[in-house]
């Protein structure tokens, strides 16, 4: 059911969608399994008791965004109602929500739907087909909410539907697609903020440390990725691993992209920027100096003025 996609569309996913889905899931789960009441009186609507672990609920929702040419960018998402009897999503609810979101984000439209779970199921195809009249080729975003600390990859998969001929019958099946995470600067900063709980404010030293730590971790990551590739290539050279020409071509084209920019104009712009920053630093130091100077002069005046009030001696300029 999940082979790799061949549609050639590139998907970009924003972290907001991931956090949205995760929040939806956590909410529904905690409403179903309410925590043990701390007070003496227990809640009346507590049908499960405290510790009853039901199977994790599946939540459903819709993802919205923009599609520009071959790039599909998923910006946001919202929840939808699922009717287990008919295995379909509540249509009127979807339309109502769509209207509301259109007012605030007029550029976005429905791109597909999401759900939680381990793997795509047969019943999902039903929902997928129903959504096809809103968007001819909807995407299906699946989040696996099981927390597995061993896995290194994001448990989010994006599926598209493709028409394949199986046993002579054309059928729609889900095919997996790859995606990249795309953020705007503000999104990145707030995700960073919540993920690492960095302190806001603080002296210049802590800010510098914060900035450098962030860049340091990013570079460390880059370094480890490079090492992995390097080891792989060395292995290929020794003959331990089978030679993969496609990969070699990619690596070689990447290598040719270095140095990233080497034009005259870049150097000029870069140096101009550098000089501008140095100028700003100079100005700030200057201001700092004059402020300190002013303080000094005032203190001097305060200390020595009394002795020479007569004689019309004026203060420093």
């Amino acid at each position, binding site marked *: 059911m999940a082979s790799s996609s061949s549609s050639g569309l590139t998907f970009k996913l924003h972290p907001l969608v991931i956090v949205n889905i995760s929040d939806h*899931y956590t909410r529904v789960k905690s409403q179903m399994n309410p925590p043990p009441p701390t007070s003496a009186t227990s809640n009346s609507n507590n049908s499960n008791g405290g510790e009853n672990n039901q199977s994790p609920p599946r939540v459903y929702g819709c993802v919205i965004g923009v599609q520009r040419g071959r790039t599909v960018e998923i910006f946001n998402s919202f929840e939808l109602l699922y009717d287990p009897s008919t295995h379909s999503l509540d249509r009127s609810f979807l339309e109502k929500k769509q209207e509301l979101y259109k*007012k605030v984000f007029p550029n976005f439209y429905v791109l597909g739907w999401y759900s939680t779970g381990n793997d795509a199921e047969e019943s999902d195809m039903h929902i997928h087909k129903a959504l096809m009249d809103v968007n001819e080729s909807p995407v299906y975003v699946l989040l696996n909410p099981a927390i597995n600390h061993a896995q290194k990859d994001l448990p989010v998969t994006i599926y598209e539907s493709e028409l394949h001929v199986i046993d002579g019958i054309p059928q729609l099946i889900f095919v997996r697609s790859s995606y990249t995470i795309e953020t705007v600067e503000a999104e990145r900063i707030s995700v960073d903020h919540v993920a690492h709980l960095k302190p806001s404010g603080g002296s210049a030293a802590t800010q510098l440390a914060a900035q450098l730590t962030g860049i340091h971790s990013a570079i460390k990551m880059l370094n480890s990725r490079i090492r992995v590739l390097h080891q792989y290539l060395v292995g290929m050279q020794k003959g331990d691993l089978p030679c993969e020409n496609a990969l070699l071509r990619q690596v070689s084209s990447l290598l040719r992209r270095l140095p990233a920019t080497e034009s005259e104009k870049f150097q000029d712009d870069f140096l101009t920027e550098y000089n501008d920053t140095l100028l700003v630093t100079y100005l700030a130091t200057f201001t700092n100096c004059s402020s300190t100077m*002013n303080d000094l002069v005032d203190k001097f005046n305060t200390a020595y003025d009394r002795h020479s009030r007569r004689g019309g001696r004026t203060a420093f300029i």
Partner: protein
Amino acid sequence: MDSAVAQKTWELENNILAAEAPDPSSDSIFHYDEVAQAKFLKDKPWANDPHFFKRVKISALALLKMVVHARSGGTIEVMGLMQGKTDGDAIIVMDAFALPVEGTETRVNAQADAYEYMVDYSQTNKQAGRLENVVGWYHSHPGYGCWLSGIDVSTQMLNQQFQEPFLAVVIDPTRTVSAGKVDIGAFRTYPEGYKPPDDHTSEYQTIPLNKIEDFGVHCKQYYALNITYFKSSLDSHLLDLLWNKYWVNTLSSSPLLGNGDYVAGQISDLAEKLEQAENQLIHSRIGPLGTSRKKEESQLAKITRDSSKITVEQVHGLMSQVLKNILFNSVGQQNRNEQPVSDPMIEA
């Protein structure tokens, strides 16, 4: 990993709470207890104490949504509502949503259109399983800091009369991007005529000249609440994994280029303030030593602090540019190592 050790050390030094990873049982904050909430609303413990609510807890999702929405407005103020609940002396914000209203600095209330939207949205949300009520509103001050303007204060006072418990949150998306950390403030107003018992000074922030009067007149009428953030266990897990993918963006972000306008505006604003300070300094000569002299001094000191802040941000931006240059442009000058790069960064 060295970075993890460094981070933990630093967190300890800076007294950051919640250093331990939340386990699933701590997700209890997500549970909406209708009975307890209704009881709290009936009791109204805030009616007697204007300073009742002291803390705000914002969920990761709400923060993300608010910052993204604020940033998407560019230089136009945007506003929205926050949903959540209360917990003792803390207001908990679970979610936020945007309102289709623009530029509310000139309007006291959101228009009828927005009310309809609010009602529709709350209804659909309740159906979809989000049971919390509206506990506040947020809006953005792009580029001029987190504080309540005169209009904001009167709106909030009205809200606190009729829609308690209610919270006002202000976000500055421009400063967020420029400084690399989220610029956000949560406020509640004092009722009319109430004098706050102690004069606690909030964290200093620079206010542009054209807004400073508005700020000064009203700054005593409200107080700031302490903001902490929380996230669910699944959120933490996902965010950790997310880092594996978007370290690329950290490296490739170019704050210098994105904030050119803002920084230029800040510098010219500082220049005006300097001129004002200079005039005052010239005019007060020997005169009576004491308070008047101190005022100009502190103004000059303020200007110095502002200029340092701007410079620090600039230098940070330049640092990342230089680092990127070294990483990706100086390959030709090194020895020929076959070091493939996993993801090329393009100089912005």
